[in-house]
């Protein structure tokens, strides 16, 4: 019986997760509390918030598990700095300062900041943490586990076999060959910020044609055994942390797209950039299929768990489930580096003799809303605020009236997706709602889709798919039925797919109640569900964040637990 805090930090998406007696009690990304998007700093606020939520004193924590091994990482960084000398001369001072200035002392810093004795601070391997974060909370007793990200200590891809509570590593592909860094390099070439713009590339891919295979054959080679190899001259991740791609990439694909330039997909130049995104997506999917087939051959398992930043590519996940030969597949909602905190906590919990946790049911592992405080602050702000008996029914009514509703109820979600606890909800029928949402709030590129949330049991009425192990966490896509595309115009992507979330009462009760109320009112049991945040901001966490959002954006109403805050119509 142990109390374990897991921590991921110092790259991007720092997070903390608390596991008590083998049960995941809380998991929070630091960005939700610091309000800095993708905050990479030590997640001390998140760690203390997890403990406070559970009513646990830091002195009672049996272990603090960090999600990677700092000295193994230092070794890899040093080896690559020296191997690529003299090209690394610009990176050398920065990398050395970052490693020696803070990263190798991270365990001491964590101990000092949390008050947990240093002797109780331990480390796990980066990819082991990822693998544990997926497999140990999956519904499977046995599974192949595939971890694909930029890079951990040395590995960029690993294959594991999970059985019971055990995880055994089978094989790896090592840095600098990396599918995560392939995607990151192309993300930078397309003019998007790395570690933030990857979703945009995925959205853009649906607008292009994947016909640039010959060019991509010069960038990445996929081997018949599932391994892959990057043409390193096209990339700069070995020698330049900022650029991400090398001159070779511009020789193959042409000059990069200038960052910040507005998109116009009627312009042939931007069409070609979309074609590059589409080809990248196709190549990534094929690479992942090769890896997954290899994993299937090595493990013989019928189930697949996927983790690492690349596992957030919902389109690729859907294709893997269709074509890789597995019966079932699971991707937990924080599959990126934040998930490492959860994995590290679970590994340490196992080492201390705890049982394997039950399968992850709800993504709501964050902090709840303080409605009393929200009421007091909203009143001081002079907002129209009133208590309502049935917030779900009222939310449904407003959605049916084509109003955009900010919905903040329950504990906030774990991971980068808003899954109903901190969401903007709207009617999915009218394409104009997308433009309105973009104009008022999101300021997104025109090619980025909005996602639907649908009552789980009625999924098949609208989509050519049923609910599966990924759909409750919005980590997959499904085709919208041809007959439903007009009815779901605001959430159907250019290629006819939608990144759907299937909603069950046991997992997301508040959103389930809203969709049930919509159905009862004769509407489709579907809502457009997008994250409750402004452009460039993390998703809302507290009542104050929600009120700040309401002040800044011209939305119709805010539901804060049982409070309705409305703008005069």
């Amino acid at each position: 019986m142990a109390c374990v805090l897991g921590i991921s930090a110092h790259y991007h998406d720092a997070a903390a997760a608390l596991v008590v007696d083998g049960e995941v009690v809380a998991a929070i990304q630091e960005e939700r509390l610091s309000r800095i998007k993708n905050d990479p700093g030590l997640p001390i606020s998140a760690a203390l918030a997890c403990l406070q939520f559970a009513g646990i004193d830091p002195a009672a924590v049996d272990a603090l598990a960090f999600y990677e091994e700092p000295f193994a990482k230092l070794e890899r960084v040093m080896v690559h700095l020296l191997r690529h000398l003299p090209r690394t001369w610009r990176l050398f001072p920065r990398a050395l300062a970052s490693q020696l200035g803070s990263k190798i002392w991270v365990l001491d810093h964590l101990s000092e900041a949390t008050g947990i004795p240093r002797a109780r601070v331990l480390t796990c391997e980066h990819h082991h943490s990822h693998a544990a974060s997926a497999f140990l909370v999956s519904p499977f007793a046995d599974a192949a586990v595939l971890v694909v990200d930029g890079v951990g200590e040395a590995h960029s891809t690993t294959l594991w076999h999970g059985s019971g509570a055990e995880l055994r590593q089978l094989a790896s592909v090592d840095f600098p060959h990396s599918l995560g860094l392939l995607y990151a390099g192309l993300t930078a070439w397309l003019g998007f910020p790395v570690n933030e713009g990857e979703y945009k590339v995925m959205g853009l891919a649906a607008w292009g044609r994947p016909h640039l295979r010959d060019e991509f054959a010069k960038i990445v080679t996929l081997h018949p055994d599932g391994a892959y190899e990057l043409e390193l001259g096209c990339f700069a991740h070995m020698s330049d942390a900022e650029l991400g791609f090398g001159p070779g990439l511009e020789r193959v694909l042409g000059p990069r797209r200038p960052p910040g330039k507005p998109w116009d997909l009627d312009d042939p130049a931007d069409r070609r950039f979309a074609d590059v995104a589409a080809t990248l997506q196709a190549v990534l999917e094929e690479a992942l299929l090769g890896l997954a087939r290899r994993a299937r051959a090595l493990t013989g398992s019928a189930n697949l768990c996927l983790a690492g930043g690349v596992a957030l590519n919902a389109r690729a996940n859907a294709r893997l489930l269709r074509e890789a030969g597995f019966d079932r597949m699971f991707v937990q909602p924080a599959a990126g580096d934040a998930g490492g905190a959860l994995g590290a906590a679970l590994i340490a919990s196992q080492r201390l003799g705890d049982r394997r946790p039950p399968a992850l049911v709800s993504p709501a592992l964050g902090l709840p809303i303080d409605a009393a405080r929200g009421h007091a602050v909203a009143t001081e702000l002079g907002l129209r605020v009133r208590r309502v008996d049935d917030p779900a029914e009222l939310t449904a009514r407003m959605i049916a009236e084509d109003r955009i509703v900010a919905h903040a109820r329950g504990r906030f979600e774990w991971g980068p997706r808003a899954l109903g606890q901190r969401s903007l909800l709207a009617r999915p029928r009218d394409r104009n709602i997308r433009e309105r949402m973009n104009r008022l709030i999101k300021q997104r590129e025109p090619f980025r889709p909005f996602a639907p949330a649908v009552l789980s049991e009625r999924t098949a009425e609208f989509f050519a798919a049923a609910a599966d192990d990924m759909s409750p966490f919005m980590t997959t896509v499904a085709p919208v039925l041809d007959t439903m595309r007009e009815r779901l115009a605001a959430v159907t992507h250019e290629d006819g797919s939608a990144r759907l979330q299937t909603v069950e009462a046991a997992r997301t009760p508040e959103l389930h109640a809203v969709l049930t109320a919509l159905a009862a009112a004769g509407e489709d049991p579907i809502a457009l569900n997008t994250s409750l945040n402004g452009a460039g901001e993390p998703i809302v966490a507290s009542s104050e964040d929600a009120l700040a959002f309401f002040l800044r954006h011209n939305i119709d109403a805010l539901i804060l637990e049982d409070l309705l805050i409305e703008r005069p119509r």
Partner: protein
Amino acid sequence: MADLTATLARLLAPLAWRSPARAARKLHSFALAEQGSMLDLRLAAARTPSPARAALYLRHADDEARHAQMFARRAQRLASEAKRPRALGPLQADSERLFEALGERDFLAFVHLGEDRARRQFDAYVLWFHEQGREQDAKLFETILVDERRHGEYTRTLLFELAGDEATAKRALRKVARWELGRRWLRAGRFLAERVYLIATLLLYVLAAPLALLVRLARPIRRGWLPAPRK
């Protein structure tokens, strides 16, 4: 100190705003400062025990977010007019978590001093822009100045309320001014140390050159599948 801010702003204005590229960078830095201030105020709103003060901080944060956007938009426009257009970085600021570091009273003193300084600096810029006939830039700062004056006034009132008496409030202002001076001193030291560090690490880099050959021989890049290490 206050007059020094205005004087420096007046003196340096021709340099700071001399080309669209420079002006874009300057405005972008203002946008980042406003964004950082917005983060600190939102955190303050979440931390203060008083709902009334939380509301005031949220309103102030909302203004800062708007200012950040106004500065960023103008910076973007000027950057595109530059001879060699360069992308400005993303509008992503850091928070100093000043509320936690200073406590609410000193945080208010800090915000008040910052608003006061910004007001004097912006006043000087407005004058200069009018003199140069750059009405669009003058208008931008004039619009923001309306809020800056209001922020200066409410933070002063709130500080005096929270301090309980004038003497304590003034003590807090002096303490924070000293703290800011110390912070500037440390920043200057860091600036210098960074340069020394850069030279030292580049020397180290050159000295490490023979190791590069060794690494290439002993630790070549590995391709394809690698077996799992035995445990």
